[in-house]
């Protein structure tokens, strides 16, 4: 799957995260801002890369501003941003690429 246009999902409220995706430069360019980066930075990065892998995306600039989001929220926001970027809101692959 290719990122078609920049897209954003999520908020800066507590327990949430704001995810931005933009077309990449041939690779995954990951950027993370979080108050708990020392404790959970590696875990957030792992979840982000797994989610992108499930979606078949290897060319993206991914920015996450984390406000204490659970793994399931990080996944949800990345997927929301990615599907916004390609303009798909129906017939989504629940249980497939979204898992």
């Amino acid at each position, binding site marked *: 799957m290719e990122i078609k246009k920049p897209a954003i999902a999520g908020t800066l409220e507590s327990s949430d995260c704001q995810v931005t995706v933009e077309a990449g430069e041939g690779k995954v360019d990951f950027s993370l801002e979080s108050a708990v980066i020392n404790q959970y930075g590696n875990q957030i990065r792992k979840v982000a890369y797994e989610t992108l892998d499930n979606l078949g995306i290897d060319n993206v600039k991914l920015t996450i501003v984390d406000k204490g989001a*659970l793994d399931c929220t990080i996944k949800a926001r990345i997927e929301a941003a990615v*599907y916004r970027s390609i303009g798909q809101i129906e017939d989504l692959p629940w249980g497939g690429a979204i*898992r």
Partner: protein
Amino acid sequence: MNPNKKRLRRTMMFLNAQKPGLIKDPYIYKPDSIMLDLEDAVAENQKDAARFSLYHALKTINYRGCERVVRINGLDTPYWKEDIRCAVAGGCDAIRIPKTESAQDVKVVEAEVIQAEKDFGREEGSVLIMAAIESARGVMRALDICESSERLFGIALSGGDYTKDLQTHITGTGIELMGARQNMVIAARAAGVQCFDTVYTDLDDMDGFRQDVENIHLMGFDGKSIINPRQINIVHEIFTPKQKDIIFAEKVVREIDTKKAQGIGVFTVDGKMIDIAFYDGAKRTIELAKASGVYKGDL
């Protein structure tokens, strides 16, 4: 029949499915059901994002026995079919249909739920349905709606939209809701399904809330939609049988069983005249006490 169709539903707590802070741990407050909302609580430009949030919450979070109901968007919107796919794929227990006005509305949703169960490997019949009634037309067709599907476990009054349609407004007294409440609970009982009352939105008036819950309990409702954890204990207190009622119900059941064997139809328990007409009510009190976790007897 799905064994959860008649489960205990004293409280249904509304939660915006788009808000991670709300949906991550509502089970700590122990509502009987949570209502993960994709409809009115979610802004138009966040409908898509709310589904991803809902899906992963359903898949990941252990709600520890709270029933997980998803309120989909209305059938007059472009969202409801994908809402059903997402909710069923995620593993929801039930779908709540907003603005239900006919049996046909339920059948249309049921067809999509059946398809989603097939598509996502859910057991057929595992996803229940409830219908929210929000208009005068819906109230007038309540019995048809209650009898529309074997999956339908109950109906719920949505007072805000209903009072708008009735050209009145919520007063806090319940006068404006009397007709709808009475009609709906009678229809639900006639059809053998459950009936749930609308939310009480004034969180600063807990005395008014208590009075409202006591009224709908007496009217025969099974439970109430709620918007804040502070409301849970009051509803549970009022809807859970008191010990004296449980003890009396036990006596009634035992005495009717004994007297029936002796060929006696009418007798007294604690000075009150009792006959077979009291049997089902007494059994229901004991079943409700069991479901609420307050029954220690052996009936």
